[in-house]
């Protein structure tokens, strides 16, 4: 119990550290508000010229794409920011604190991921609120159920961040992989358009990652979009991906740190 409290205190210390850093650069706060606002404004007007029949979401394409944008926002902030943050820790030498602390490098890096994730979820919620208040997106009565589902989705996405951070720890670079992964997920996850419009030979990829069920469930709960499969089936898929990918991601991260410690690359930048 005491050990758990100490672990929790250390995790909180890392989140608080990152929050202090974030608010100390005030322009980031402004950018965090304006970025989502401009993005949904852009897609609101694009949606006026898109009337494809494959989009069966209430609110038309705007209702469909806003949920995709929320997920892309979460992915960009989490997958994009995390490897950069860890890379900065290597360059500034602050990762050394994790390497020599009782908390340890794996826990330290997991802790480093928490603030970007919290920030990403906040950005996603902000985007949704702006879409509802400014552009009149009709939210379904089941919208509150989206909270636990989105948290589950975020946990299911984390292994992808672990993969990128592992690359940083072992080889120092992950920027190109990050862009590749986020863009790839946006295509096969059906975030900007329904997967029904994808060619048949690539559509199977939408079934073997957690982003499609997460997007489908969130669309259903937030704007009442119909589901291609029963909700329970989508939920089981999401939980299944989480249970398989999360431990695998942690093991990969641990192995990457060990590799860096043996070869000495953990001390390089």
């Amino acid at each position, binding site marked *: 119990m*005491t050990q758990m*409290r*100490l672990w929790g*205190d*250390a995790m*909180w*210390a*890392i989140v*608080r*550290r990152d929050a*202090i*850093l974030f608010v*100390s650069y005030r322009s980031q706060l402004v950018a965090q508000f304006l970025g989502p606002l401009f993005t949904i404004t852009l897609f609101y007007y694009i949606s006026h010229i898109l009337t494809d029949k494959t989009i069966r979401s209430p609110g038309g394409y705007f209702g469909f794409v806003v949920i995709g944008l929320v997920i892309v926002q979460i992915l960009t902030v989490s997958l994009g920011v995390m490897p950069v943050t860890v890379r900065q820790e290597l360059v*500034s*030498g*602050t990762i*050394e*604190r*994790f*390497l*020599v*602390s*009782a*908390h*340890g490098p794996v826990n*330290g890096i997991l802790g480093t991921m928490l603030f970007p994730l919290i920030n990403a979820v906040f950005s996603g919620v902000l985007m949704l609120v702006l879409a509802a208040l400014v552009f009149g997106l009709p939210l379904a009565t089941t919208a509150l159920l989206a909270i636990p589902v989105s948290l589950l989705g975020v946990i299911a996405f984390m292994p992808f961040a672990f993969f990128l951070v592992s690359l940083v720890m072992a080889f120092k670079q992950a920027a190109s992989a990050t862009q590749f992964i986020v863009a790839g997920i946006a295509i096969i996850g059906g975030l900007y358009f329904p997967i029904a419009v994808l060619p048949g030979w690539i559509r199977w990829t939408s079934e073997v990652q957690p982003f499609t069920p997460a997007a489908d469930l969130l669309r259903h709960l937030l704007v009442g979009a119909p589901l291609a499969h029963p909700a329970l089936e989508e939920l089981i898929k999401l939980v299944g991906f989480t249970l398989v990918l999360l431990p695998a991601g942690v093991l990969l991260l641990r192995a990457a740190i*060990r590799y860096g*410690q*043996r*070869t*000495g690359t*953990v*001390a390089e930048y």
Partner: protein
Amino acid sequence: MSPTSVSAPVPSHPQTAAPTAARLLELEGLYHRWKGPKPPVLDDVSLTLRAGEVTWVGGRNGAGKTTLLRLAAGILLPQRGTVRIGELTPATKGGRYRRQIGFLSAGDRSLQARMRVRQQLDYWARLAYVPRERRAELVEVSLRRFGLEEFAQRRVDRMSMGQRQRIRLAMAFLHEPIVILLDEPRNSLDDDGYEVLAEQIERAVAAGATVLWCSPRGEDRVLTSDTGYTLENGHLERVE
């Protein structure tokens, strides 16, 4: 630098540095080779640090002193050989091992630039798993011992290099480790800073800790050492 070019270390803690003092950190047969066509920087290096002792390791730039310290701290894992404190090793019981270690790296890195000094120390105390009931006390004690009280609310990136070095030293000692590893600790310190550092080392070894001090030249030492070595061509040579 040859072993004869450094001043011979003089025992500074004869009452606590007896040969039978408890072994704290044991490095045995350490081998480490960096990538590339270079010879190993450490080749079969063994060193035992005992309770109540100050050990100095010198050697020219690039001789492997920092690598040795990083291995001892558990930042790097040995490619060959063992590092242990009793039954604890960095690879198998890393958290408990690192709890015993206080580490100061060379240079001015590893500080959170935009945190205030007290926040920085509290942050470290939490990472070091200092129990809640002792955390505030140890942060205040560290501020006082390292002459940082008047800067407690100042942001780290607005402090001088010497003041930053004091914060880094405070973090190395804060959680009361039994093995203190210092890489060029006198960097940027003024005369008062030297005295503070010497006092804290004296205090730690008197309490039963051991200190390993690495610096290129023997003159960099604040305290005379119980034992001195130079590291050359991957091997440790004792300085008599």
